[in-house]
């Protein structure tokens, strides 16, 4: 019986039903559309595919999307940790409201967020007008894209780290202090290592979201080909040209890259859990 090898006896029956459902569901929702994407891509011949993939405009968008997404996720790791720390460790008036506000980037329609950010950072916007005299432009530049990606990624870090922080035993920090460790050392050698697995998960989620983000970015990006044009936008442009195979090819390369990066992040996560997760 092959099923006996991965099926442990349980008080709740229904393994076959549940497993079958899971596979069928994943197939319909995830696997078949993705497979279709690759099938569509390979309707192109190799020379055509190679031409699309080495297109300068695509390469620039690829670099922009993945580079800025990684950067934004990394930025969110640092400041998301600080926000999570403040929200769990201190009680102050308005803490609950601030806590609820963290989820706003989840809830807001991304286009609304994009328009709001553009309005604020445009050269005549609330923040933009103070930066414009110094020649600093945020909206319609890569900096604007970065800000939009940071905005939508923040909740991922905060919400994955927060529960772990709440469970963190204060005694452990006190033990570190009684042993003579300074506050910084306690943070870097005692607190942060315990947060590592959750932080890596949050990083992966924020990154994945940023790579695929469309709505909030296109308004603030300015969308200059080769400069501020993100990958999802390039796909939309190809679709509007009725170039379905071309769009699918870009999507396929994007998907493959994302998959490779997420697998790598998962390996790091598994390692960190082994290394730091003993408890």
């Amino acid at each position: 019986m092959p099923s006996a090898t991965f099926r442990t006896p349980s008080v709740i029956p229904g393994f076959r039903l549940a497993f079958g459902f899971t596979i069928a569901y994943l197939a319909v929702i995830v696997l078949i559309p993705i497979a279709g994407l690759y099938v569509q891509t390979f309707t192109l011949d190799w020379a055509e595919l190679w031409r699309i993939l080495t297109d300068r405009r695509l390469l620039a968008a690829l670099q922009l999307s993945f580079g800025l997404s990684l950067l934004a996720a990394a930025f969110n790791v640092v400041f998301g940790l600080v926000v999570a720390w403040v929200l769990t460790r201190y009680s102050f008036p308005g803490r609950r409201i601030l806590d609820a506000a963290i989820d706003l980037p989840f809830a807001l329609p991304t286009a609304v967020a994009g328009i709001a950010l553009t309005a604020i950072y445009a050269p005549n916007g609330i923040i933009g007008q103070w930066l414009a005299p110094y020649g600093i432009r945020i909206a319609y530049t890569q900096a604007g894209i970065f800000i939009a990606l940071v905005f939508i990624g923040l909740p991922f870090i905060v919400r994955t780290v927060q529960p772990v922080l709440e469970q963190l035993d204060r005694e452990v920090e006190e033990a570190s202090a009684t042993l003579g460790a300074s506050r910084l050392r306690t943070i870097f050698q005692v607190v942060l290592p315990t947060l590592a697995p959750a932080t890596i998960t949050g990083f992966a989620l924020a990154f994945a979201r940023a790579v695929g983000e469309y709505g909030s970015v296109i308004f603030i990006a300015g969308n200059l080909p080769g400069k501020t044009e993100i990958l999802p936008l390039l796909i939309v442009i190809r679709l509007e040209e009725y170039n379905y195979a071309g769009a699918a090819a870009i999507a396929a390369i994007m998907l493959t890259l994302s998959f490779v990066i997420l697998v790598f992040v998962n390996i790091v996560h598994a390692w960190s859990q082994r290394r730091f997760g003993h408890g």
Partner: protein
Amino acid sequence: MQLDIRDIAKDFGATAALHGVDLTIRSGELIALLGPSGSGKTTLLRIIAGLEFPTRGQVFFGPDDASHRSVQERNVGFVFQHYALFRHMTVYDNIAFGLRVRPSATRPGEAEIRKKVETLLDLVQLPEYGKRFPAQLSGGQRQRIALARALAIEPKVLLLDEPFGALDARVRKDLRRWLRELHDRTGHTTVFVTHDQDEAMELADRVVVMSQGRIEQLGTPDDIYDRPATPFVYDFIGEAFRVPVEVSGGAVLFEGNRLDLPAQGVRDGRATLFVRPENVSLAPPADGLLPAQVEILRRAGARRRAEVALGAGAIRIEADYGAGVEVALKQPVGVAIREAGIFPAA
């Protein structure tokens, strides 16, 4: 290192956790802070460690005023109830932590650290456990590693907060004996907090009984048990039953019967007698004995125990009695109280 605690008070908001506590702990002594929860014992321990700062008062380590020193500067070994081991570090790294975080001028080399850690692992009798993670140890083993980690920094004093609280009864007993032996060998001035009177009595040289932020009594386990200083200590340590009495002209009267007990300087008026079961004798009714009736008989381990209703029957106390004493349920019996504490009625 002698510890002097002078007039330490601590308020948490509007509630006072400690009201002006004075205490001197002699060098090399093993002291128990004993009390119910909320008595301020843990707060006092944390103030000594520097994990908490007092509202008023001073802490002296030997001749030095340590009141304003940070916890890092105090060099105390602190053992937490739930061990507080660093779970992402091996046992070895846990014990070495306190040495590795020293400033480079006083930090020993890795070879020296290795020697020290191995010595400590031997001391806590877990020599082969250096490579394990805390999750792979039992509760008792974790607590011993926590102790080794605290000792690694060569602390001036060793402070333990309910060190055996999270362990099961057998491990607790073994660890208790082991800690006493360890203390006798290493000679650290040691203060531990407990709410378990057996633990305090068995382990400590002197016991500090605390209640509601005050010290009720400070003394050897014998002092505490045999000569409780306050009604609270009588109730909290061992068993005691309250008997309302009248003091008149130096005589102690219960419902008009004169008891053969000194009034111990208690002034005339109403008073309360605290009677321990082992200080009560039962005999056939006779002159000079308190008339009583046997209500319940039971066996408590090695002892025979009788619950008797005194005089008119409203007051019940318990008495231990030997095999030679004839007692029967619902029968009259004579009671003699050989020894008791007496305090003016509140």
